[in-house]
């Protein structure tokens, strides 16, 4: 049962230090809780949906993130000028910047997330690994801290046995990662990983782990209040990845049973509590094919894929983040958390499938969006909007909920059939392919699934009838050569139709 709210100093105004779909999603939560919102925007985002929907909107700077959305000083200044009680950082940008969280604390503005100290302890991969070891959490055999030298790398690899994996300590997104199957490849991989890590993250610290073959990526959502209570909200399966980026996420996982969920959940809670963690966070694990799980890292913020957890638990994570930050105790207990049904999310990107999946910014000339039962879209676009070239290519998250995994897949395919984004290229076709794939449907997926799928050539039987397409092309050309009709009929017959439809 939901506990009644305790009296607490409620926020009156929140500054949302982000853009795109997540800024809009946070704005909606604030609206629902009766809290005014302040949007911030760069020159590229004056016409973005998060600016249009917010109560207040303030200009930050030029398009590059380093001159706008990463300028914590400007953002704190706007928070102070507008009298915002709190700042929600979303994901990306400043969301995992402990210095910014600390600056908020000093400025007397509540940062909606963990305290800077917990963020530092769990945000870096190496310090998080030490914390995980301290609470006895299983993790992949390997070095706890950065490798001091190539010699140490040889020693660790020898101890844990090949195949092994090199990773950047400060990293993410696959940068600085190298798989090594034989001793003789280690030196070259070590040097390449170091230089890639340095370029990407400004630090050449790398560490070494046993390579888990065909692993699944499973993560546990946690929520902790400022009174010592901490809950786990079940797992998300994020094994469908490309270039180490998540493409499709779902909840629950098809391979996690209640006993395993409980073991993973309790381990995640122990880790968070050991560092005084508060607010929402996610503990990421690899799961091998014998149901062993290994700690990977912790994300000290709201995740992109939080909606699938919301749909199966019936909770609203952003509402709860705000209530926690207001100092309220969690309104429920672990026994109140029940998973029901199945949810799957697609990350819709502006990318060109015919051109190496490179980004495809530009104007959205037509937009037909899906709807109806079980479909949620968290989106930051509209027809006529120009998707800027400066930021992440994510346009929207399309999420289906249904009683079973099979029906959630069918529902998502139905919604994809209704979805048209014209003017820019998108990965909508990729989701059709994944969701129709037999391996995906029967669920023996691992983090290598998508790369294997994409290595095959697409099945010949693509949808869409060429004859109809050719005829339609002729109709469009015909319409181009005559004045734009004022009614719904092609060409000159429109007047009679207008009359029939009661428009005269």
């Amino acid at each position, binding site marked *: 049962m939901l506990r009644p709210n305790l009296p607490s100093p409620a926020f009156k105004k929140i500054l949302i230090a982000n853009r795109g779909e997540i800024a809009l999603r946070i704005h909606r939560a604030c609206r629902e809780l009766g809290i005014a919102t302040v949007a911030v925007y760069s020159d590229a985002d004056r016409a973005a949906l998060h600016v249009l929907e917010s109560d207040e909107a303030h200009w930050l700077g030029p398009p590059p993130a380093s001159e706008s959305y990463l300028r914590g000083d400007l953002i704190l200044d706007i928070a102070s000028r507008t009298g915002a009680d709190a700042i929600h950082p979303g994901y990306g940008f400043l969301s995992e910047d402990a210095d910014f969280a600390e600056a908020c604390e000093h400025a007397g503005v509540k940062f909606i997330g963990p305290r800077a100290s917990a963020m530092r302890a769990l945000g870096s991969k190496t310090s998080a690994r030490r914390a995980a070891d301290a609470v006895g959490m299983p993790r992949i055999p390997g070095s706890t801290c950065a490798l001091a030298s190539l010699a140490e790398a040889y020693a660790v690899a020898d101890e844990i046995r090949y195949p092994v994996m090199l990773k950047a300590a400060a990293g993410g997104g696959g940068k600085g990662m190298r798989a090594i199957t034989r001793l003789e490849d280690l030196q070259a991989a070590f040097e390449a990983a170091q230089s890639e890590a340095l370029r990407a993250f400004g630090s050449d610290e790398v560490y070494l782990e046993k390579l888990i073959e065909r692993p699944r990526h499973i993560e546990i959502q946690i929520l902790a209040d400022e009174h010592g209570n901490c809950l786990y909200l079940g797992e998300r399966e994020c094994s469908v990845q490309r270039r180490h980026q998540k493409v499709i996420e779902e909840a629950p996982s098809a391979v996690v049973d209640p006993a395993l969920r409980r073991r993973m959940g309790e381990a995640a809670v122990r880790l968070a509590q050991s560092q005084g963690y508060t607010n929402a966070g996610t503990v990421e694990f690899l799961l091998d094919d014998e149901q062993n799980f290994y700690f990977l890292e912790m994300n000290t913020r709201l995740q992109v894929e939080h909606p699938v957890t919301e749909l199966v638990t019936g909770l609203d994570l952003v509402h709860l983040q705000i209530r926690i930050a207001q100092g309220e105790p969690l309104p429920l207990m672990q026994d109140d958390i029940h998973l029901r049904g199945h949810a799957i999310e697609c990350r819709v990107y*502006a990318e*060109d499938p*015919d*051109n*190496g999946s*490179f*980004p*495809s*910014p*530009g*104007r959205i*000339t*037509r937009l*037909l969006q899906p709807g109806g039962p079980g479909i949620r879209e968290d989106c930051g676009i509209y027809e006529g909007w120009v998707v800027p*070239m*400066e*930021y*992440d*290519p994510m346009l929207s998250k399309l999420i289906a909920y249904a009683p079973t995994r099979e029906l959630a897949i069918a529902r998502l395919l139905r919604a*994809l*059939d209704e*979805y*048209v984004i*014209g*003017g820019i290229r998108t990965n*909508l*076709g990729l989701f*059709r392919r994944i969701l129709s794939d037999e391996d995906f449907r029967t669920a023996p997926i691992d983090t290598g699934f998508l790369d294997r799928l994409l290595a095959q050539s697409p099945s010949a039987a*693509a*949808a*869409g*009838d*060429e*004859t*109809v*397409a*050719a*005829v*339609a*092309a*002729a*109709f*469009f*050309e*015909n*319409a181009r*050569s005559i004045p*734009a*009709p004022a009614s*719904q*009929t*092609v*060409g*000159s*017959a*429109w007047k*009679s*139709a207008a009359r*029939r439809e009661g428009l005269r």
Partner: protein
Amino acid sequence: MKLEVEIEGRLRIVELAPATSSGQYHVTLDGQPLEIEARMLRPGVLSIIIDGRSHRVVLEDDAPAINGNDHALYLDGRRFPYRIEDPRSLKTRRAHAGGADGPKVIKASMPGRVVRVLVERGQAVEANQGVVVIEAMKMQNELKSPKAGTVTEMRVVPGDTVTVGDVLAVID
């Protein structure tokens, strides 16, 4: 109205003529007659019913001219690039497209900002050697020379903003 539509690698000949009642059309496709009920729901969004089958087709009118296609449409979740023209100019253009010889232009295949120029005018390049690097949405794309030769033109400098189809350099 008679049109030649180049679509999915085939040239299709379509004739349209309005029939007596509103929205009805006599259509022939490659000489085969079809009875079609069509409505333009709004500019660029068309409903067609052929033999009781209902289709919604969406025109992507600002489509970039990648692969030399001028237009594209969406049908049942699939994108169909197409071109419409009269047969004479089509043949002309094909004749002019030529073989592997002659100067080659390097065009931007995505919109973005030029972050690096890897060669300069007058420099000799190998086939597949990198020429220009473009960045958009945090991803970089290195454009390569289609053949061995000499850079006869370099039209961009780092910081320039380019859009799809812009000529970046010429190799001869």
